[in-house]
C-alpha cells in the first residue's frame, strides 16, 4: 500500500525511499507483537476479581513484577513473532539494511525502551480499573489512539511538522513504534537518531514514575475501602 504511495510521488516520500518504506512496514508488523500495543488486560482482570490483593502482599513492587513478566513476554515474542515478518520482507522486498554500525545497538536499545513505554501505557490504562472497575472505555480510547499515533497506519513523518513535533515530544505514542523503525532504516543522521532514542529514554522514565504514583494512590484508596 505505502509502496504505491511512493510510486505515485515518484520515488522519495517524506524522506523515505521505497526500500526504507518496505522495511518500515515489515519491521513494523514484527514489532507490533513485541511491544504488544493491544490486548493486555491481565491487571484490569485481577483488579475486577480482587485477585490483585495477593499481588500487593508480595515483597516485590507490583509495577516491577508486571514489568519483569512483560519483558520476558517481549523477549519471547522477539523470537517467535518478530522474525517471521522481517524474514518475509527480506525475501520478497527490496530491504534497507543498516549502513552504519551504531544503528544496530541503537535499534536494540530503542526496541527495549519501546517495550517499557508501551508496558507503562498499558499498565496505566489497566490501572484505571482501580477507580472505574470496568476498563472498557479507556481500553477503546487507547486502542483507537495508539495505532494511529504510534505510526502503525502510516509513518508519522507524513504529517506536517507543526503536528509532528508536539506529538513526538509531548506524547509517548511515537516512541512506541515510529522511533525504533526510523532508527533501523536510518531515516535521519546519527545526531537526530540518537536524539529520538533520548526522547524515548525520558518517556520511559516518566511513564514508570507515573505507574508508581498511580499504584501508590490506588493502594491508599484500597486501604480506605478496607479491601
Amino acid at each position, binding site marked *: *500500500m*505505502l509502496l*504505491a*504511495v*511512493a510510486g*505515485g*510521488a515518484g520515488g522519495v*516520500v*517524506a524522506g523515505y525511499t521505497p526500500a526504507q518504506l518496505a522495511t518500515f512496514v515489515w519491521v513494523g508488523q514484527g514489532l507490533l507483537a513485541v511491544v504488544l500495543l493491544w490486548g493486555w488486560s491481565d491487571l484490569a482482570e485481577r483488579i475486577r476479581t480482587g485477585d490483585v490483593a495477593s499481588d500487593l502482599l508480595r515483597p516485590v513492587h507490583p509495577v516491577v513484577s508486571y514489568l519483569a513478566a512483560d519483558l520476558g513476554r517481549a523477549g519471547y515474542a522477539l523470537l517467535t513473532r518478530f522474525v517471521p515478518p522481517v524474514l518475509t520482507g527480506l525475501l520478497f522486498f527490496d530491504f534497507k539494511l543498516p549502513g552504519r554500525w551504531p544503528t544496530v545497538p541503537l535499534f536494540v536499545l530503542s526496541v527495549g525502551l519501546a517495550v517499557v513505554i508501551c508496558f507503562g501505557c498499558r499498565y496505566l490504562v489497566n490501572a484505571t480499573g482501580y477507580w472505574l472497575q*470496568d476498563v*472498557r*472505555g479507556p481500553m*477503546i*480510547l487507547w*486502542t*483507537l489512539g495508539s*495505532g*494511529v499515533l504510534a505510526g502503525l*497506519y*502510516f509513518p508519522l513523518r*507524513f*504529517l*506536517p511538522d507543526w503536528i509532528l513535533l508536539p506529538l513526538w515530544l509531548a506524547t509517548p505514542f511515537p516512541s512506541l513504534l515510529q522511533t525504533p523503525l526510523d532508527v533501523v532504516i536510518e531515516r535521519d543522521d546519527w545526531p537526530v537518531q540518537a536524539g529520538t532514542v533520548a526522547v524515548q529514554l525520558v518517556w520511559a522514565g516518566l511513564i514508570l514514575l507515573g505507574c508508581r504514583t498511580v499504584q501508590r494512590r490506588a493502594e491508599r484508596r484500597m486501604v480506605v475501602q478496607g479491601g
Partner: protein
Amino acid sequence: MGVLPAYLALLRGQARAQASYRTSFVVDLVGNVGATVFDVFTVLVLFQVTRNLGGFDRAEAMVMVGISSAAFATADLTVGSIERVRQYVRTGLLDAVLVRPLGALPQLLLMDLPLRKAARSLFGIGVLVTALALADVSWTPGRVALAVLAPLAGVVFFGSIFVATATLSFWWIDSGEVGAAFTYGGRDFTTYPMTVYSGWFRAVFAYGLGFGFVAYYPALALLGRADPLGLPAWVGWTAPGVALLAAAGAATAWRVGVRHYRSTGS
C-alpha cells in the same frame, strides 16, 4: 400475522437494554465512529505526501473510500452481529433460537442490533456524499441511480460476506479469525483503488471474491473514467447483480449450514 409483533418485541428489548447504561453506550459510540474516522484520515494523510494513488487523485479516491465505508458500516450495523453465531453455537444458545417458531436468521440479527454502530454508518454516508459533491461528476439520471444503488449493493455484498463467514461456525465451531480475514480484509481492500494492488492477490480478491465490484468499478462509472486494468465501462453498473449473486450464495450456505447443524450438547 402474529410473527411481526414478536420481532418488534425482540427489537424493543434490545434498544432498551443498550440505552440503560448511558456512559458505556457513549464510549462505545465514540470508539466505533473513531475507527472509521481514522480510516478516512489515513487516506487523507497519504494524499498529503503524494498527488495520486494508483493513478487516481484525491477526489476520485475519496469516492471509493466513501462507497466502501458507507457500505461496510451499514452492513456491520444490520448484519454484523451475525459474527456472534460462533458463541451461540458454542454455548448452545442457538438451540433455543432454532426451537422458536420464527426464522433463525432474522432472530439472530435482532438479538443484537448494535445501535452503537449507527453513528458509524451515518459517518460513512457523510463521507460518500461529501466525496461525490467534491468530485467532478457529470450527473446523468443513470449516475444518480448508481450513486444510490452502489452503496446499497455494497451493503448487500458485505452482508453476504458476514453471513457466509458466520456459516463456517456450523462446521467448524471456533472459526474466528478465518472469517475476519475476509470481512475486514475485504473492507480494507475496497478502500483503495485496485490499481495499487498487483498480481494474484488482486486477481483473487477483486475478481475471484468480487470485492472489486463494491467500490472500485461503481466509482469508475460515476466518475466516467476508463478502467486502467482494461475492463469495459459498463462493468461498474453490474455491482447490484454481483451483490445479488453474493447474497444468493450466502443464503444457500446458511441454509445448508443450519440443516447440517448438530448441537454441541452444551
